[in-house]
Every structure is written in C-alpha cells, then in structure tokens.
C-alpha cells in the first residue's frame, strides 16, 4: 500500500494551517468562561505530556513509563525555583524542561545498560514512585504532603490567576514545542529514532549512533514533559505529590493510543479529545477508570494506529513525515 504524500500545494496549505490554528485560538478566550478556559488550558498541558510520552513509546518503541516522573520533576522544579528562589515563573519553564531532560537522561541510562522491554517498564515505574516518595519526604524543599503553593505573579500588569493570561503563555509554549518536535521528527534525527525502533542492529550499520539517538530522544521527551510540568504548577497554582502518581497513567496511555502511537498530531488530538470527554462525563462520577480502560482496550484491538491513521487516509495533508525537497 503506497502512502500518498502531500503535493507542494498541500504542503503550503498545511504550513498555513499550522500557524492559522493557533492564530485562531488567540481568539478562544473571547468564547469561553473561566471553566471552559481552564479545561482548554488543561488540554494544552495534556497535549505536551502526551507528545513527550508518544515519542518514547511510539517513535522510539521503548516500554518506558517515566513520563509521570518527568511531569512531577518539571512541576516541582518549577514550583521550587519560583517559590524558594524567587525566579519568575516564565523563566522556570525552560529550567523545568532541563530538569525533565535530566530525568530523561537517567531513564535512558537504564535503557542503554540493556534494561529493555518489561524491565524498562518496571524500572521506570519504580523511578516514578521513588520520585513521589521523594516529594513526600523532602519536606523542607517540597512542602511534603501539604504541597507547595505557587507564588502570585503578574505579567504586563495582569495577574497569573487569570486563566486567559495562562492560556496565551501555555499556547505559546505548546506551539513552540510541537513545532520543534515536528522539526525533529521530520529530520534525519526523527528517521533515526524510528529506525532504532524498527531494527536497532541495522540502524548502527548505517553510521547512526544508536545509543546517542536513544539518549537524546529520552532527554527531549523529558524536556517536553518537564515544560508541561511547569505549566501544570501554574495551572493548578499548587503542587501535591498525589498529582504525580500512577493513577494518572491510564489517561496518558489512552491519549497516546487514541491519537495514534508515534504521531505528533495524534498526541495533540488525543489529548484534546480525552481531556474534553471526561468533562462531559462529569454527571457520571467514577466512570473514568472504566472509560479510559475500555478505550485503550478497544483502540488496541480495533484501531491500533489511532485517529492519526484515519486522518492520513482522509487527506495527505495529515501525513506527518514529509520531505522538504528543494523547490
């Protein structure tokens, strides 16, 4: 089956769309109330978490569940830097990303020591829970069980308690990171990542340093999710250890799978859909685990490549790996 690649015209349309969508979203706050705005902000954070996650389990094909750890590291990193060191929150975003990347480095150290497959899954789960234990017990730094409030701050005279202001910052961060990730995945690096997934041995025979590819992918994933953590600390205004437990893992899985393993567009789509749907299910509390569990099972059996594959079939515009040929 041949994949239809987008024509030059479709490619132009697509890059137009890529910027048109966020441009239109600038107007979103005019159509929301604080509640829907809050949900929209949450979608942007989920999109980044899912994006970082799908890179490792989808593109690199590694069974690593360290994303909750990266997320917590980012959120606590941002909160500690802002509350204890007094850094402006905006500045803590890239720093939280860097801390997340450090987490990614540790996770890849396991992968590079030959801990793969189920072992990697188990050790990364343990990593996440150890981090959570750390948040609980490093009380002077993290506030322990009482959590940590984010200090109030303003930007251009507007308080960061405004969901609208948060939205613009979140949107900017999300668009930048999605764009950078797309650049990455469409480059030689992105191909190398997928090559490692498909056949690590053959990849090395093409002068591709597979260890470095694994390391960098984990670190970039950690960076993206770490940044998302920084957004989350501002989103809720408070960080608690309970926000970074294993209970949240199933939602991430569902988002990755519904969107389509290894797809940037799918990550965003899955996150938006599955952040919105539970809000509609608010009237039926307690359905969430059942709901996400059934979705994951259904997608695995019926639509293993997720929504992204349906979209690709609809129009070549949605093919993510396109080539930038000379004009």
């Amino acid at each position, binding site marked *: 089956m041949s994949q239809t690649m987008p024509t030059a015209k479709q490619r132009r349309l697509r890059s137009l769309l890529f910027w048109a969508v966020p441009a239109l979203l600038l107007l979103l706050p005019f159509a929301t*109330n604080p509640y829907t705005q809050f949900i929209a902000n949450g979608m942007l954070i989920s999109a980044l978490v899912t994006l970082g996650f799908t890179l490792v389990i989808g593109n690199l094909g590694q069974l690593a569940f360290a994303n909750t750890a990266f997320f917590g590291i980012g959120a606590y990193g941002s909160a500690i830097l802002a509350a204890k060191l007094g850094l402006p929150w905006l500045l803590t975003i890239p720093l939280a990303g860097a801390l997340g990347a450090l987490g990614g480095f540790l996770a890849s150290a396991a992968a590079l020591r030959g801990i793969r497959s189920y072992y990697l899954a188990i050790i990364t789960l343990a990593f996440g829970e150890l981090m959570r234990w750390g948040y609980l017990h490093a009380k002077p730094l993290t506030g322990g*069980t009482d959590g940590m409030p984010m200090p109030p701050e303003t930007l251009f005279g*507007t308080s960061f308690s405004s969901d609208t202001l948060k939205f613009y910052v979140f949107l900017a961060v999300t668009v930048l990171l999605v764009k950078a990730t797309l650049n990455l995945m469409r480059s030689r690096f992105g191909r190398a990542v997928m090559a490692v997934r498909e056949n690590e041995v053959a990849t090395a025979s093409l002068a591709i340093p597979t260890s470095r590819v694994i390391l960098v992918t984990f670190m970039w994933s950690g960076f993206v999710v770490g940044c998302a953590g920084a957004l989350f600390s501002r989103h809720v205004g408070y960080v608690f250890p309970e926000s970074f437990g294993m209970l949240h893992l199933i939602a991430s899985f569902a988002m990755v799978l519904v969107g389509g393993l290894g797809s940037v567009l799918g990550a965003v789509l899955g996150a938006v859909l599955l952040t919105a749907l539970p809000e509609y299910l608010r009237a039926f509390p307690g359905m969430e685990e059942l709901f996400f569990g059934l979705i994951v099972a259904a997608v695995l059996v019926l639509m293993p490549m997720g929504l992204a594959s349906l979209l690709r079939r609809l129009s070549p515009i949605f093919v993510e790996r396109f080539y930038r040929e000379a004009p």
Partner: protein
Amino acid sequence: MKIFTTMLATAALVASPLLADDAEWETWGLTDDAITIGVMGPFSGNASSYSKALVGMMAYYDKVNDAGGVHGRKLVAVQEDTACDSAKGLAAAKKLISQDEVFMLQGNSCSGVALALRPTIVEAGLPWIVAHAVSDSISDPMAHNIFHGVPTGSANGRAMAAFVLSKPDTENVAIIEHSNDWAHSYSNPARDYLKEHGVSPSQELTMERGQTDATAQILKLRQNKPDFIIAALYEAETAIFLRDLKKYGMGDIPVMGTAGTDLENTLKRTGDFDTVKNYYVIHSYVDNLDGTLMKPWADMIHKYAPDEELSTFSFVSIGSAEALVAALEAVGPDLTRSKLIAALEQVHDFDTGILSDPITWTATDHQGVKSSAVAGFVDGEPTVLKAWGQPY
C-alpha cells in the same frame, strides 16, 4: 505587544464575572423559589468514601426543603466531583462558579483540593462553607468569603494532644502515622500542642496504607515504652496496629486515634474487646454514632438516601449546613451574597446538636469549630469524653 495586552484586557473583561454588574452578581444563582448551592466532593476516585459527608449534608437540605425551605426558597444542590484531585477540583469549582452560576459553595472533603481552590474562590468572592476538609490553611489567613464549618486539623490535633496530656503523668508520647496530608493534618498540630506544653514526641514512626503488618514499628515502640501513643492511621491500619500492639504485650498503653476511625468499627475489625479497650478517638459528635442523640440524624440520612451505609463521615458536614440555614433565616427573604456573608459572621455559639463543640464565626475568625470531644471505652461502654476520665 500592545495588541496583545489590549486583547488580554478585553478578554479579561468579557470573561470575568467580577466586573459584571454588582447587583446582578449579588443574586447570582438565586431565584424566588431556589438557592443553588455548589456541592463539591470526591464522589469518585480513591477517596470517595469521604463523599458520605456530603451525602449526609444534602440529606439535611432535603429535610429543610420538605419543611418548606428557607423563606420559600428550596436549597438546590448542584453536585460536582473533584475525585480528590486538585486539577479536577479546580475544574469543578470553576464550572460551578462560572457555568452553573451557583449562589454559593458548600463542601469539599480533600484538604489538598481545597487549598488549590482557595485563590480561585477568594477571587470569585461567593460564600464558601468548608464542610469537611480540615487543613487550617484553607481558612487561615482568613478570607472574607470562606467559612470553616468543621473542627480544623489544628483543633482536632490539639484536642488529641490535650486529651493525651490530660492523663496524669504522661511524659513519653510516641507518634505513628501515614505519610500523607490527611495524617499530617492531625499529627502536626498535635506535635505543636505537645511542644507548647513541654513534651516532645519520643518517637516518630510511619506505617503506610496497605501494610498488613506492624511488627517493625511495634518492636521499636517496645524498646521505648511510651505512656501514650498518637496514631494517625486509617481504619484498617489502626486495627492492625492495635492488634499487633496487644500481641507484643503492650495492650495497656493507651492509643489516641483520629476522627478517621471510630470505636465500634475498630472493635468490629479487631473482633476483640481487649485490643481496643485502651483506644481513644477524636469524636466530633455529641454522642456515640449509634447513641440516642445521633439517631434522628441517622434516620434523616436514611430517609433521603435509603441505600447509604453510615460511617463516621456521614454526619460531619450537617452541622455547618444547620448554621447556613440559620444564617439564611436571619438574612430574610431579601437575600444577597454580601448579606449572607454578614449573617454568617453573626453565627455565635451555635449549638448544632450534632457537633460536640458549637460553631462561632466572627468578622475576624472564620474557623468556626474550635475543639472536639474524644470517645473511648469506659467500663466497657463506648463513652464520649471531654478529658481523661471526664464524660462529656
């Protein structure tokens, strides 16, 4: 950048209910025959047993409504789930405030969620009666629209420590607890109270949820031989702890537990009176759960929620609902949010007939319940106590 800030300002203008017409804001969520009240709580998730408090509270609304409501208005609860998760709780609060446009809020069981909600609700300005969560930081520093309607963590914790010290010759006190915010909300104020009275805990141990064995902890205690043990543990772990305590021959050491456990259930769980005969719990009520003073409340809950199983949580939020109704009565038919807040601040020494201590809200202090009673076995009978050896 200028365009951006203009846009931001416009957006804020459109989005913020604060800037809407004041008069309209005052009566938001109010009609001639209904007062909408946003009830937030963990109706799902791993803390959902706490939501029993809100079920009891809503049963009280129903009771008031059956009696004709308040000045002809029914209390209409709009229920939202927080799942005890801060992000979900924030979404729930924002939904109630800006989409359902409720008149006021009452509820919330998880302290973490309540803390995360505080800035948003302070900014929104509508009255919020905290009906279950205990963390002091929810209402301290005081916010003009937030009222605490249950004994706070410090009230409970201090009551625990006060009871411990009321036993003559208590010097060596050990603490065992879960490492979560629930346990710390009891143990930290208890520590403070002990320190204020010149006693520092001789031993601090943790026991995690789900552990089925306390051997390691008990053996450490055995070496220390404390006079009294403060145990901030959930029900199951409490039972295991008490059982192991007795097993290792330390059944005579009194143990002070939290409001999260009750005597009858603990007795049922250990199945042995000897094990629990020296166990005391914080008990915020005027009587034993199956006592005569509590029976009408139990009947009320069963009338409106027939399938509901009762637990110690079931009654805890009703007192604050009584105080709310009293304040609403006092305001009269011409109700506004500001008037309600003013009326709540007039609630003084309000005897709820259910909480062991009265509710008092003033213009400078919104933490309404200052202390709590203790329950323990006296001559084999469960008894509500004021202090060591002093029945309530």
